[in-house]
């Protein structure tokens, strides 16, 4: 079944390196490397040949330790930084036939504004702290072409209600909010233009445990209700277990294992995954 379906998001051979590389690290397998770092020239290979598909309504988890390249991958998917090379196809753009990574900055912005939403680990990156919360949501709607204040206000209010921000605080600036509330405003903003793809980058890291649980519940509920596709990055296998249908395990910039989340948890193949799963138990 899944084979016949067109993926909502398809990433092929995505590479991102920091540094120019040198003859020694051109061949990454035999080069003089510590993990994904070249000892000769200091180049870091943050993402190496990352390939995956995400289907309609699916939650794809990406787990890995810090430095494994998962946040770099998320930045690349949302065009927050240029990739070194690779391909990415988005179903809603040119029928998924064009490599969006080669598109102009203007087109990339279109894809971001119309087809994606992202929640950052650090709310400062996702929100304008000195604009009202409703204004933050409107920004995303305006970018997607909305020019009707009334409809944006209604949409924003219902989203904020959905993420449990009291309506009487919607004109407040997120800088007055707690970390958990800021994260919920970010989620409301990311969802505002009904994006087929939602990117979540360590959204619960740094929050209190009880707040973590409520944010995760919220995401789970919204995902079921809206049937959107989510790419979720976390170093916490617990978060992945709760939300992800399928999981990629990243280590040193590479995908070392992938499969159904249950399968990976029950029968991890790669030694690193085994170690991760054991630490969870």
């Amino acid at each position, binding site marked *: 079944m899944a084979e016949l379906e067109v993926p909502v998001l398809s990433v092929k051979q995505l590479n991102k390196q920091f540094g120019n590389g040198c003859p020694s690290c051109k061949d990454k397998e035999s080069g003089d490397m510590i993990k994904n770092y070249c000892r*000769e*020239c*200091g180049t870091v290979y943050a993402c190496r040949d990352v390939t995956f598909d995400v289907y309609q309504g699916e939650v794809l988890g990406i787990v890995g330790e810090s430095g494994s390249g998962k946040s770099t991958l998320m930045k690349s998917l949302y065009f927050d930084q240029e990739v070194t090379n690779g391909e990415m196809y988005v179903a809603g753009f040119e029928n998924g036939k064009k490599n969006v990574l080669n598109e102009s900055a203007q087109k990339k912005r279109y894809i971001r504004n119309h087809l994606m939403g992202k929640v950052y680990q650090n709310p400062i990156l996702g929100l304008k702290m000195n604009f009202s919360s409703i204004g933050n949501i409107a920004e995303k709607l305006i970018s997607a072409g909305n020019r009707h*204040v*009334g409809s944006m*206000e209604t949409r924003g209010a219902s989203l904020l209600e959905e993420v449990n921000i009291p309506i009487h605080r919607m004109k407040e600036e997120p800088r007055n909010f707690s970390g958990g509330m800021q994260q919920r405003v970010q989620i409301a903003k990311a969802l505002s233009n009904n994006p087929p793809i939602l990117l979540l980058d360590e959204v619960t890291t740094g929050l209190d445990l009880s707040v973590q649980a409520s944010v995760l519940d919220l995401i789970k509920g919204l995902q079921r209700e809206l049937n959107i596709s989510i790419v979720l990055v976390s170093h916490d296998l617990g978060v992945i277990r709760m939300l992800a249908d399928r999981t990629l395990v990243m280590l040193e910039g590479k995908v070392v294992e992938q499969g159904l989340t249950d399968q990976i948890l029950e029968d991890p193949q790669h030694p690193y995954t085994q170690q991760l799963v054991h630490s969870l138990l």
Partner: protein
Amino acid sequence: MGYVAVRGGTQAIEESIKRLKYERLKKGTVLDVHKIEDGMRGLIDQVMSESSLYDQSLAAIAIKQAEGNPEEAVFLLRAYRSTLPRKHVSRMMSSEDMQVERRVSASFKDIPGGQILGATTDYTHRLLDWELEKETEESIQDWLYAYHAENRLTEYDQRHMSDITNLPKVLDYLRSEGLLASCENNDLQPEDVTRKSLEFPSKRSERLQVLTRGQTGAVTSLAYAVIRGYGALHPTVGELRVGQLPVYLDHPLDEGQEEDSYYIGDFQATEVEMLVPVTVEKERGKKEMEFEIGYGLCFGQNETKAIAMGILDNCLENPNADFPSQNEEFVLYHIDSVESTGFISHLKMPHYVTFQSKLDSIRKTKEKASTGETGSGNE
């Protein structure tokens, strides 16, 4: 009806200009421009540097016309400068050819060629000299005669005169020791910032031009903020030199031939090379300390400004989002005397129309507030 606020402009301006002239002359004293030129070296140098126009006599006229106000004097010279055609471009000059009048290094006690204190206020006690009140042109003659006699060159001196026209650079010593990254010559034709407007990211040649034209106080303040804590820089003066730099023009038919070029004169300049220690990553992840350079050069003897310029040059080579002083737009857009004083002072101009528009806007929001319509859907 009292509506005359913006009327009768022509006459008002004429009267205002007359009054301005009166303020300059009302005590019946005429300030001799030669005296300004000869006796106000500090102000002349500052004005020439900020105007990027090297001409003491014009600077003296500008200072006289501006009644000693440097921002106004700079304005006058800049406006004059912009009407001058560019007839020639000098040959590239090298500061090693400077005829040094003063030269110090804070980094090394014994620099090749020695430290030359020259003329500096650094070691004067800042006590008002009451004698100056009584100083006359006659009274200084004896002092001048004695000074010349004391400094008459001996044969030995003359043999060693050539030394000061070719003093080795402190930085070359550091380079030969491998403590300073050697840099490649950049022979790209520099963009003239007065002929092509800045675009970002800017080139270093453009940054240096804007810095050297910068308002002395603004450049100094920003550099001070950097070394006091609002910046990530801990510099030392590698070498500061003040002296005369010769200017040569190419022969019009023999471009590039040094021996056919024409010497057209000297200008005095202050040059500073700041040493800034940085950590560089070498191969195999090893970290080393090295020095980077911050470069300052201004017309005349403007030592504080030249040092500050050197600090800011290095700041802008190493952008740092944490500090505005290490953000090129923040620094380069705001240190120009004519631009900053012009825009600040334009606030004096009438803004009646904009104010009327603002009134309308405020009344409208008050109306909305009283009818309780604040942001709840359509009207």
